[in-house]
């Protein structure tokens, strides 16, 4: 009799372990929703990204639409993908994500594409994702600094371009403004150069650049709608929170740090990579005029700069073999923050770490049940 009970207990324990390893909330077996033959593990020039965006919209009309919300200096469209369920004619809460504000940070546009791909692959079977897409719209701009990104693709000598491609101001001879110093957020005060030939040149005035104007106009008109502003960069493996100025602190600094640290933990769990969390003056350098700071100043409660891989070995020239792992970990970080923001808004839930508690709960119950049975 005892031996039978042991066999049953062992069999059940094995079954439990197997089930634990099956992710029953996501379907990885189909490529449904994402354009065929698009390689998310390579870098793509603007023309390919634009084609991809069109296909994503055409092939997923119930989920994705796109719109042009501005123009670059050289007259190119700045386009977002709007991703959400049941969004027709409804003003929903929203998440903002932009990539490629700095031209040479190629992993950033790669991540925006990866992010969209993940949504397309899983939105039907991932309950949580599905719920969030019903409650919120995701505005994703795969390439914000289109002119700069295109310039960085011309040849090896242009690869490390950072700024926009606006023409030199009076009395100076170099092109471009650092778009992430050009926003109206303590503009021109710290961490900038007034020399137009420098890579942190903040421009002739706040929002002098059309790319910064586009974001300001679109996001600025939806401040009450937008819950979370994520701007994607490389490199350094950092999660930066407002503000870049050393003398001011966001009112929800503690919460931003706690959520950021939990997101970094989620990122580390994927491939073991450390991401440091803090304000720019704490962990990197003081700066002003960043889009992240502007968003927070406008009242968007959650605003983060993601600095993706790596820590200096390859820097901005991140090998294509690292696109997948870099995007996988970044996705977990972004998902964590977005889920937190969603749950706080819609359920007033703000505890961090409850997920792991829930996951441990059921196996513990079952093990106790088996133990009790064995002893009886």
């Amino acid at each position, binding site marked *: 009799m005892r031996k039978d009970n042991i066999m049953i207990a062992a069999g059940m324990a094995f079954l439990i372990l197997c089930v634990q390893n099956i992710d*029953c909330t996501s379907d990885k077996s189909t490529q449904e929703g994402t354009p065929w033959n698009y390689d998310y593990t390579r870098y793509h020039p603007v023309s390919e990204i634009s084609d991809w965006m069109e296909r994503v919209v055409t092939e997923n009309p119930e989920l994705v639409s796109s719109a042009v919300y501005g123009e670059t200096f050289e007259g190119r469209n700045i386009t977002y993908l709007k991703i959400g369920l049941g969004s027709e004619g409804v003003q929903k809460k929203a998440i903002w994500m932009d990539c490629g504000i700095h031209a040479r940070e190629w992993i950033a546009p790669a991540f925006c594409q990866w992010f969209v791909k993940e949504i397309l692959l899983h939105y039907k079977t991932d309950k949580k994702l599905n719920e969030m897409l019903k409650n919120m719209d995701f505005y994703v701009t795969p390439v914000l600094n289109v002119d700069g990104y295109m310039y960085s693709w011309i040849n090896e000598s242009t690869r490390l371009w950072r700024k926009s491609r606006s023409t030199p101001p009076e009395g100076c*001879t170099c092109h471009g403004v650092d778009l992430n110093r050009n926003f109206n957020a303590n503009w021109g005060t710290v961490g900038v150069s007034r020399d137009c030939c420098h890579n942190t040149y903040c421009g002739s005035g706040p929002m002098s650049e059309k790319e910064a104007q586009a974001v300001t106009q679109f996001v600025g008109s939806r401040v009450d709608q937008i819950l979370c502003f994520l701007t994607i960069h490389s490199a350094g493996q950092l999660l930066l929170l407002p503000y870049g100025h050393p003398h001011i602190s966001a009112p929800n600094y503690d919460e931003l740090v706690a959520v950021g640290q939990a997101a970094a933990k989620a990122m580390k769990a994927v491939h073991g990579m450390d991401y440091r969390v803090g304000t720019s003056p704490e962990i990197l350098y003081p700066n002003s005029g960043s889009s992240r700071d502007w968003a927070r100043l406008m009242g968007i409660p959650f605003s983060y700069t993601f600095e993706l891989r790596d820590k200096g070995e390859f820097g901005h020239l991140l090998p294509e073999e690292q696109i997948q792992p870099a995007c996988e970990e970044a996705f977990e970080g972004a998902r964590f923050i977005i889920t937190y923001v969603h749950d706080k808004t819609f359920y007033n839930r*703000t505890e961090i770490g409850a997920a792991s508690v829930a996951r441990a709960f059921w196996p513990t119950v079952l093990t106790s049940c088996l133990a009790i049975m064995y002893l009886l």
Partner: protein
Amino acid sequence: MRRPLCALWVFLVLLGDCLASPYRPETEPLDPEPHETNSIVELELPPELDGTMSDGELVPHHYPAQRAAKVAQHYLNTRHGSPFRWIELHRVNKASLEDLGQAGKKYYLEISLKEVISNTDLGQCSAEVLFSGEQDQRAPQVQCPCEGMQKLNTTAEEEALFQRLNSSDSPVSGSNIPDSYGHIAPEMKPLWHLGAAAASFVMLRESNESTLYNMAQVASITQLETENGQLRFKYHVLLHDMISQEILHWKLLVSWSPAGGVSVLQTEWQPKPAESTP
């Protein structure tokens, strides 16, 4: 009787586990914040951050300790870097700062390091990094005895490379390493690492508390005539300074042999090339 009941219980538990939503609404929320704006009316220019740090403990993951630790990394690569050895800072575990007045600022660090090519954990090392005072424009002085280096044995590969390059009829050359896609041809990897080790001499010398250097790329490398049993190369390297976000061009004359290690015989800073407007 017991078995069917138990099986039913197991089934229910499995079902519950599968359907369990990831969050449970029990605990109190953090302070819910309404949308708040911070309006800045007036802003005075901040004081120079360099001069206002006080003595004592530093937060390891904050920038002052991180910049000093990077300097220790550069130092280690000048001593131990080679075509088959590249040392990278993994983490800063502990840091403190001593203000020596005119003599400068001295950082005491506990850092963990990794040799990247063989993926060897070099364990923890102590480092002292002295940045000279404002009067003195000297390079930082570093002490970093690191027992973990003894784990490394790259003699065989280095000898093989040395022989190959020394006896080859055509001197080796290359450009844009890595290329725009981050790719490096396998046969160029050792020369990329050699370039990084050579660049470390410049990065070390040029570092101060307001810089954070990494080598961005080997723009070009050309092998020259071997001299005094040392292979010699002309390197054009691009350094990236994280703080200014600038790319700095340096031309280096480098010599190397397995026994002699890496030496940098000449360095020449190149002004930024004129913008190409295609």
